[in-house]
């Protein structure tokens, strides 16, 4: 007579025990792979960079497609809001237009004067900048990381070290470039360090990201004349960013540090303009 095991196979208890054992071994393998991956991507940066850029190129079109309905719904909502605000917006624009007409005439006069003076001094002008608009297609899911993925890469002329600008203010720089996508490291990220100066006093410092919306200024001289509300701009040191790009305003001064409130909030950016100012930097970031 056949035994119970022969008819029904192993008992459910032994099956559970076997499954638990397999799971333990599997977890051990995954644990080792995870640690190995962490260590290897830490040691070999080229491996992780090539893996990431390759992945971005694969993922970018998929995310773009997934986001299309969201963009559509968002644009419909935006259109409806614009229609409601149309009259108010028209009045505001008419006033702004009057102001701009005045500034236009001033700019035209100053440009002519500037050109003449540059000719007199034989001034070497900055290289002309190239820019491209790109859409933010993905963000980091962690609160410890502040970077975004954009849908433009090497094929669109983007390279590492390019400046990411939103509403005339710097928000970050390109750190990894794929063929059709790139990753922008935001000013708020923990590893972001930007040489800046205070407009007016010309005090120099380093804007150090700390994963918050108000990054502090480091290495500010003890005899600085910084006041709340002063504009913080790029200093041009290091040769990555040109001097004069707007960043933010001094928002808090304490004994420990000086905090800067960024003009463009990187957490709410949907589009960015990527500028190539033709600067190579002291360290070659194009590699």
């Amino acid at each position, binding site marked *: 007579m056949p035994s119970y095991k022969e008819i029904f196979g192993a008992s459910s208890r032994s099956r559970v025990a076997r499954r638990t054992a397999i799971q333990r071994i599997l977890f051990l393998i995954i*644990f080792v792979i*995870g*640690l190995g991956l962490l260590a290897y991507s830490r040691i070999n940066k080229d491996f992780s960079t090539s893996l990431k850029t390759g992945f971005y190129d694969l993922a970018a079109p998929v995310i773009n497609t997934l986001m299309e309905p969201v963009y559509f719904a968002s644009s419909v909502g935006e259109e409806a809001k614009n229609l409601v605000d149309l009259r108010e917006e028209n009045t505001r624009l008419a006033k702004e237009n009057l102001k701009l007409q005045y500034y236009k005439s001033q700019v035209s006069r100053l440009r002519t004067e500037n050109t003449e003076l540059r000719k007199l001094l034989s001034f070497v002008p900055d290289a002309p900048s190239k820019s491209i608009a790109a859409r933010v297609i993905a*963000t980091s899911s962690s*609160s410890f990381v502040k970077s975004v993925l954009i849908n433009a890469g090497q094929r669109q002329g983007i390279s590492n070290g390019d400046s990411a600008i939103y509403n005339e203010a710097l928000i970050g720089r390109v*750190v990894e470039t794929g063929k059709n996508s790139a990753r922008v490291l935001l000013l708020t990220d923990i590893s972001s360090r930007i040489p800046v100066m205070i407009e007016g006093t010309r005090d120099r410092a380093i804007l150090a990201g700390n*994963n918050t919306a108000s990054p502090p200024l480091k290495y500010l001289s003890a005899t600085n004349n910084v006041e709340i509300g002063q504009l913080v701009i790029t200093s041009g040191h290091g040769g990555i960013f040109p001097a004069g790009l707007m960043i933010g305003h001094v928002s808090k001064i304490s004994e420990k540090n000086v905090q800067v409130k960024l003009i463009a909030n990187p957490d*709410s950016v949907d589009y960015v303009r990527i500028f190539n100012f033709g600067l190579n930097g002291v360290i070659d970031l194009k590699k």
Partner: protein
Amino acid sequence: MKIERYKPPHQRRLENIWHHAMPTLTLAALTIISILPLPIPNYRFFTPDLSLLAIYYWCIYRRDLIPLPLCFAMGVFEDLFDGYQIGINAFIFSIVFLTTTTRARFFRKQKYQILWAGAAALCFLATLLEWVLREAFLTDHVTLTLQSFINAGLSGLLFPPLSILLSKIQKTAPVRVH
């Protein structure tokens, strides 16, 4: 006696596929949602850890259908988007998987409030673990900010609606079809 409605073989096959793929698909969908720049005010500032909650839920209710390699792969997927060391989220998700599966039976017997508290505690522990790993593997000093804790708290608060959604999805394939 309740008589089961006759279902043609292809429908049974489809139900079977759906039954097995349900946790994988929902986890993949929530992982993708967590990296998309959704047009919600301050969404990027307060990003809830949806994938972590999904792993927690499925490990408790359908631990047979959520394999560890899948959780690991989803972690690698998030790591690639983060742009830092590959393996941090993968490691965290694996730990969450192990912690939850070993206590799945306990959680299933508890009241919903305990389950919810477990999810919130897990979110905070995952945040602390992530901080420890980033501190260990990054050259820069990583500080624990208020945002990190708000994110963990928000993830905990989002567990009830997410668990309702996942249970509704689970009910679409309530019986294992052979």
